[in-house]
């Protein structure tokens, strides 16, 4: 977990997908309310760039999304998290995880025979 979305860059977000994430939810402070002035605005631009990359390489752009919340909006955070998890469940495992699962299945089949 990162304490500030301003530290996020595209490679960190892509790494999450390489490491097996089916979806990545980026939660930043409310726009105009960043302690470092524009950290969350920069994060949104980076999320948008990763969105475009995921679309181009057919992983699915909807697997990444940015939300803006204040630290006092716990119930809203839970609602956003549930909404995003629901969306990812609907999309199913990422193509990377499908390939990995297929390979693992093939290996276990081979071992049992």
């Amino acid at each position: 977990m990162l304490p500030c979305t301003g530290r996020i860059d595209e490679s960190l977000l892509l790494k999450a997908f390489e490491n097996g994430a089916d979806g990545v939810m980026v939660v930043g402070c409310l726009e105009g309310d960043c302690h470092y002035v524009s950290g969350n605005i920069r994060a949104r631009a980076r999320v948008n760039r990763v969105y475009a990359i995921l679309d181009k390489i057919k992983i699915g752009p909807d697997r990444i999304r940015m939300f803006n919340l204040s630290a006092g909006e716990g119930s809203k955070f839970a609602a956003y998290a549930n909404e995003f998890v629901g969306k990812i469940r609907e999309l199913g495992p990422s193509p990377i995880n499908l390939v990995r699962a297929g390979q693992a299945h093939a290996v276990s089949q081979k071992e049992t025979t």
Partner: protein
Amino acid sequence: MITGTPKPIEEILEMLEPYDNIILAGCHGCVTVCRVGGEKEVQVLASTLRLAREAAGRKINIREVSLERQCDPEYVEQMRPYVADHQAVLSIACGAGIQFLAEKFTMTPLLPGINTGFLGVTERQGEWSERCQGCGDCVLHLTGGICPVTRCAKSLFHGPCGGSVQGTCEVSKDVKCGWQLIIDRLKSLNQLENYGKLKPYKGWSTARDGGPRRILREDMI
């Protein structure tokens, strides 16, 4: 700086089709400043390629490298110990850097990951524009610091042509007439007499017309 733009990912994936084990080489020079070929871009492109290839069912091993400069031999040589362990090098430096790697590592295919642009300046984050064509015979002292070779679409040396309308070039409404800029600037500098000092013709022998150029500084050898 030398500017560039990323190649479409589809084009890079097509180039990488025969390979499963490559080096992705960035450069800390100009391409880092214009955000197309630095260390950060190496990380993003490497992740993107690994994801795309694995999703397609064929993994690729990528060694991520960022050299101080790909246009200087001492930095290029840092790659020598491990280049032969890889099937190809994908470079996201400018065309000069990519060619220099190809010259040094003759047994390894070199692939370009960016399209090299021009010698230019940063207008603002994300916007660059051309300023110099390296003609080898600078006249900026006579033209108010505005280059007629680059800023005039026809590289004219005798003032604006008939296609200049209200300060705009006929090439596009977004392109200012280079000669209008020069004359306005000379007027404001009170140096309009410089307009008459320009050579009657421009010698292009120092430009690209003579083929690839070379600078030999005897005092430095």
